[in-house]
């Protein structure tokens, strides 16, 4: 029997996220963003992190504001429905953080190379763009077979991937569904993996549908029970996006002072995940619940 990998959120972050780590998170874009884990990293005042992700909505902006970040390897940093990420802007404009400018496809390609264990992968995107000037991981290349011009993207191997999933067993086998973004490549390319899960379920429930598994459990280092752990982003099958929270964050992050006030209320004052749910309040959570259930047809994995 393998050992259980269940951790409390604070213990998983303390053990697997060291200062200076490269962390992939928010890898499904607008859905399944691991806000609870990101906020715990802020509470533990991790420093000099490199954040990796395509579009992680406001989570990257929050972690930059928390002083955790030295470098960003991403395609886009901001607030999807309101525009700018103000902490991000301030940090790049002051030189406090270094940006490696990707497109969604170059970041995917870098993680695919990492996932496949090769040093780089070619792509046809970004040719003629200035991404080459602000991203040392993208280099002009030539196809050895046809002579065509390509872009070579250097592999990324994050130290840790943090992926929010719907349900996991205590051994690291997890079901994830919906749009997956680059979750598979990010998990595969990373040295360590932390899963935060809406539910912890019996291993038999996961093994009843192995096509829905993110990655083989032996690759996972920690499993954390974190209900509402992606709030305010949506989780298919569990809850909808809290648009108002994203709209409110815009004005709550416009100045460093406003952001500090936001952080002390939404991050620093939260002592536990249970605290967080109480703080959010049942009324708010109920309005985000799934009201139109659509169950898939079961499939037969028998023999």
């Amino acid at each position: 029997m393998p050992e259980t990998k269940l951790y409390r959120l604070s213990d998983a972050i303390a053990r697997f996220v060291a200062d200076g780590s490269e962390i992939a998170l928010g890898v499904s874009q607008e859905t399944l963003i691991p806000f609870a884990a990101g906020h715990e990293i802020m509470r533990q005042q991790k420093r000099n992190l490199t954040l990796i992700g395509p579009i992680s909505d406001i989570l990257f902006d929050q972690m930059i504001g928390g002083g955790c970040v030295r470098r960003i390897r991403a395609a886009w940093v901001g607030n999807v429905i309101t525009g700018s990420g103000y902490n991000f802007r301030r940090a790049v404009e002051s030189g406090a953080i270094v940006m490696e400018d990707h497109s969604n496809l170059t970041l995917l390609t870098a993680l695919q190379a990492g996932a496949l264990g090769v040093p780089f992968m070619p792509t046809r995107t970004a040719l003629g763009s200035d991404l080459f000037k602000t991203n040392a991981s993208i280099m002009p290349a030539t196809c050895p077979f046809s002579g065509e011009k390509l872009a070579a993207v250097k592999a990324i191997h994050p130290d840790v991937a943090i992926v929010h999933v719907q349900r996991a067993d205590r051994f690291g086998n997890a079901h994830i569904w919906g749009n997956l973004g680059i979750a598979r490549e990010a998990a595969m390319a990373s040295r360590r993996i932390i899963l935060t899960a809406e539910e912890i379920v019996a291993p038999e429930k996961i093994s009843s549908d192995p096509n829905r598994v993110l990655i083989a459990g032996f690759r996972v280092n920690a499993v954390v029970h974190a209900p509402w752990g992606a709030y305010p982003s949506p989780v298919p099958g569990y809850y909808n996006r809290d648009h108002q929270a994203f709209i409110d964050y815009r004005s709550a992050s416009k100045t460093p002072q406003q952001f500090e006030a936001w952080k002390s209320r939404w991050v620093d004052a939260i002592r536990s995940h249970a605290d967080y749910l109480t703080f959010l309040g049942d009324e708010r959570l109920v309005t985000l619940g799934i009201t139109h259930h659509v169950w898939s047809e079961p499939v037969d994995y028998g023999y």
Partner: protein
Amino acid sequence: MATENTNYTSVQLMVTAAAREIGNAEVVFVGMRLPLLGFFLAKSTHAPDAVGVFELGIVRDSLAPEPILTMGDLPNLYRAQWLADTADVMGLLQQGFVDVSFIGGAQIDRYGNLNTSYIGATETVQTRLPGSGGACDLASLAKRHIILLPHEKRRFVPRVDYITSPGYGSGGDWRRQMGLPRGGPSRVITTLGVFCFDPDTREMILTAVHPGVSVAEVKQNTGWPLRVASDLKQTSPPTAVELEKLRQFDPKGYWTGDMG
């Protein structure tokens, strides 16, 4: 004949003009914000068989059952044709299966290059913008792309500070020289008018002004000597049906500013 309708916002006019660029049964790579509305508008009017491809790994051939603000909102996943990985939809794009895409930008130049990354130099950053997202990929790899942005002189510059999403570079056959396999901007739709590109020089040309907008006003808000088409047209305003659909997809006017 439809009655003249002036009860619309400039964003509704832009989105309508964008939606009309989508042909029936085309494969559309749908970006965040206004393109979401444009796709649903086309799908519910003249292009019912259009297929939407979303960068986070969604392909859908039906309307979302409820209004959405981001492509990851759960109604956009409901009875999707395919819920997949970004690698899958980027594969469709890179292979050449995407007919048209829509992107926005902060800065554009006369050859349709777009900047959504840095204003000023990259070493001493004056203003940092959010970045490419998927825009660079769509501009590089779709069969054609359409650009939506507000028309202001500070945005319409002779040369962008940074090429996030390649247009026609310095003109002519620049894209081929760079190795880009296909594509390029086919239209620019702004708050003042609609533009195309010269088939040889690839310079931007004003082809239509919106109702109530003069050519002089467009020129005043453009940072280079603007070419104007000899057969300049006026943009047709949104019809009552198009406005009704837009209100249905954006009932609170979050994107269009139409509070009903």
